[in-house]
C-alpha cells in the first residue's frame, strides 16, 4: 500500500504539485489522468525519489507503514516500487541482463535472472536479439515500453507505476502489453498514468484520479471515464 499525505513538490522553487493526498491499495488498479503539464510525471518521479524534486514541509509518502519521503531512489526500488518510464533512455554498454543482475544481487543468482528474462521476454514477444543488445539501443518507443515491462516482471515489485505506457505503442503491442499487465497485476498495486482516454479499452480501473494544475481535481470510479471521453478534462 502506498499512501500520499499533503504532498507539495517543487522544482527549483517552482511549485508543481499542490497538497496531494491519496491512497493506493493492494490488488487494485488506479488510473491517474490529466491534461499535459498537469504534474502526472512529477508525481510519479516524486514517488520514485528523483533528487531534483523537493518535497515541501509536511508532505509525506508512506510505503506500508514506512515513511519513505526522503529515501533514496534505489531504496524505494528495493522495497518494491517500480516506475515504468515515459521515455526510457537507451544505455550504452549495458544489457538488460547486466542491469537486472546488479539490481537483484543478493536476491537472485545470475542464472535465475537469466532464466526469468528469457521466460518473460517470450510472453512479451521480445526477440532474443533485442535482449542481447544494449538496453533500448536503437529501439522504437513501443520496444522500449516492452523492455520496461520485462524489467517489472523480473523485479517483481509490489507497486507498479506505468507512466504513459500507452504512448508511442502500436495496436498489437498495446494488446500484448495490457494482456501482460492484466495477468501480472494480482496481489500488486497498479497505477496507470496517462492523458489518453483510450486506455479504458484495455483496462478496468478500480479508481480514477484526475489531476489538474498539480492537484487532484476529482476522484471517482470507472464510470467517470465516459464523461471525460465526451467533455475532456476542462469541465471537471
Amino acid at each position, binding site marked *: 500500500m502506498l499512501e500520499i499525505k499533503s504532498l507539495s513538490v517543487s522544482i527549483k522553487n517552482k511549485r508543481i504539485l499542490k497538497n496531494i493526498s491519496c491512497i493506493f491499495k493492494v490488488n487494485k488498479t488506479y488510473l491517474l489522468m490529466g491534461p499535459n503539464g498537469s504534474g502526472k510525471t512529477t508525481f510519479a518521479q516524486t514517488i520514485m525519489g528523483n533528487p531534483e524534486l523537493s518535497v515541501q514541509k509536511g508532505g509525506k509518502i508512506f510505503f506500508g507503514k514506512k515513511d519513505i519521503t526522503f529515501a533514496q531512489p534505489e531504496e524505494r526500488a528495493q522495497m518494491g516500487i517500480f516506475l515504468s518510464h515515459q521515455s526510457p533512455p537507451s544505455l550504452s554498454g549495458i544489457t538488460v541482463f547486466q542491469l537486472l543482475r*546488479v539490481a537483484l544481487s543478493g536476491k537472485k543468482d545470475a542464472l535465475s535472472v537469466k532464466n526469468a528474462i528469457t521466460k518473460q521476454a517470450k510472453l512479451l514477444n521480445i526477440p532474443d536479439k533485442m535482449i542481447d543488445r544494449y538496453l533500448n539501443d536503437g529501439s522504437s518507443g513501443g520496444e522500449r515500453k516492452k523492455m520496461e515491462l520485462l524489467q517489472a516482471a523480473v523485479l517483481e515489485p509490489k507497486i507498479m507505476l506505468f507512466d504513459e505506457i500507452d504512448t508511442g505503442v502500436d495496436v498489437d503491442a498495446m494488446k500484448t502489453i495490457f494482456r501482460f499487465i492484466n495477468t501480472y497485476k494480482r496481489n500488486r498495486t497498479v497505477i496507470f498514468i496517462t492523458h489518453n482516454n483510450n486506455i479504458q479499452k484495455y483496462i478496468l480501473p478500480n479508481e480514477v484520479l484526475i489531476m489538474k494544475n498539480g492537484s487532484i481535481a476529482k476522484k471517482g470510479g470507472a464510470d467517470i471515464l465516459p464523461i471525460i471521453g465526451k467533455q475532456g478534462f476542462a469541465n471537471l
Partner: protein
Amino acid sequence: MQIYNSAMLNKPPNTFRYRYGFSMPEKNVYSTGVGLSDKVIRDISRLKNEPSWMLDYRLQAYAFFCSKKIPDWGVNLKNLDLDRITYFIRATQNQTSSWEDLPKEIKQTYDRIGVPEAERKFLAGVSAQYESEVVYESMQKELKKKGVVFCDMDSGLRQYPEIVKAYFATLVPFSDNKFAALNSSVWSGGSFVYIPKGVHVNMPLQAYFRMNAPAFGQFERTLIIADEGSFVHYIEGCTAPVYTKDSLHSAVVEIFVQKNARVRYTTVQNWSKNVFNLVTKRAQVQEKGIMEWIDCNLGSKATMKYPAIYLKGKSAHGEVLSIAYSGKNQHQDAGAKIFHIAPHTSSRIVSKSISKSGGRCTYRGSVSIARGAEGSSAFVTCDALLLDGKSRSDTYPRMRIREKQARIHHEATTSKIKDQELLYLQQRGIKKIDAEGLYINGFIEPIVKEIPLEYSIELNRLLQVEMSHHGG
C-alpha cells in the same frame, strides 16, 4: 663497498600502511643504497657477473641520462626525487627454482597474489619479480620441450649472451629518452622470452611484479623474440603496496615479431598511488606478423607510457588497445605510436579512458605512414568518459601521412554519464556507485573481452575498488 642487510634502510619493518595488498618486512641481502653514480652501476654489473659490453653499455647510458633534463611535457615530475631512490636491492642471494626453496616472507607475499594457485590452475610459466630480481621462476616441461625460453633477463644474459647481444637495445636505444637511459644503466630483472620458429605457446606466459621497499625503483628489462610463424601471449600484471616515499618504476620492453609471427602483450598496471610509472615499450613487426599491446593503467601517481609498433614488413599488423583510469591526484598520460614503414600494413588504436574525482587522463598518440607504405590503413578511436565535473581528459592525436595511397580513420569522443541515465538505474534499485560501475564495464567492454578471463575479472574488481575509494 658492499653493505649487507636492511639496516641501512633505517626503517623498522611493518610500520608502513597500505590500502590493498600487503607488504612484507624487508630482508634484503644487498642494496646499493640511495642515489646513483658510476660506482653504483659498476657494483650492479659486478654483482651480476656481467660481460664487459653490458657494463660499458650501462655506463654510456648513465652518461646520457645525466646529460638529459627531466621532460617538461606529459605528467608533472617535479616531485620525483631521483637522488632518494635505491637503484638496486638483491632480495635473496640465489635464484631458486622451486617454490619450496623460497624464503617464507616472499612465499607469503606470493600466496596473497595467488601465484601458486594460478600456477596450479593453468599457468604455462611464472616468472615472479620480487624487488629488483627474479627469485622465483617455474616453467612447465612443455615449454622446455618446445624449445621456448622463458626466464629472467639476468639469466637470459648469462645463458644466451649471443642472442641478447644481437637484440638488446636495438629497438630502444638508451638515447631514446631520459628514462630509457636510466633503465639501460640500472636495469635488473624483467623477462627474456624466445619462441622458436613455428611454435605456438597456447597458454599465456605470466610475470608478476612486486615492489616491496620504500622509494625503491624497479627497472626491469624485457626482451621478447618471436621467431617466424610463432605465437605467444605475455601477461604482465603489477600491484604494489603503498609507501610513504615516492617510488619509481621505469621499464623497457623490446619485442621482435618475425615473419608470420604474432605476439600479444597484456599489462594490468595497478601500481600504488605514489609510484611514477615511466615506461618505454616498443615492438618491431616483420612481414605478415601481428603485434598487439593491451594496456590497462589503473594505478600509479603518474604514468607516461606509449607502446610503439614499427610495421617494418609487408602486410604487418599492429594494435594498441588501452584502458586508463585516473582517480584523485592521478594522471595517466598514455597512448600509442605506430609507424607504417612497409606497404599494406594496417593498424588499430582503441583507447578508453575514465576520469573521476579530479583525475586526469591524457591520450597521446601518433600514427605515421611513410612514403612508399602504399595501401596501408590506420584506424584510431579514443573515447573518454568523465564521471564528474572536476575530472579532466585531453587528447593529443598526431598523424603524419607521407603516402597518398593510404587510408586513415580517426574518431574521438568525450562523454559524461548522464544524470538521467544514472537515475534510471537507481530507480531500478541500483546504488549510484554500482550504476557507475555498470557504465564503466560497458564502456571498456570492447577491450576487456580481449583479456583472459581471470584478468578481466580482476580488472573489473580493481576498478570497483578504485571507484568506491573515491566515493560516489
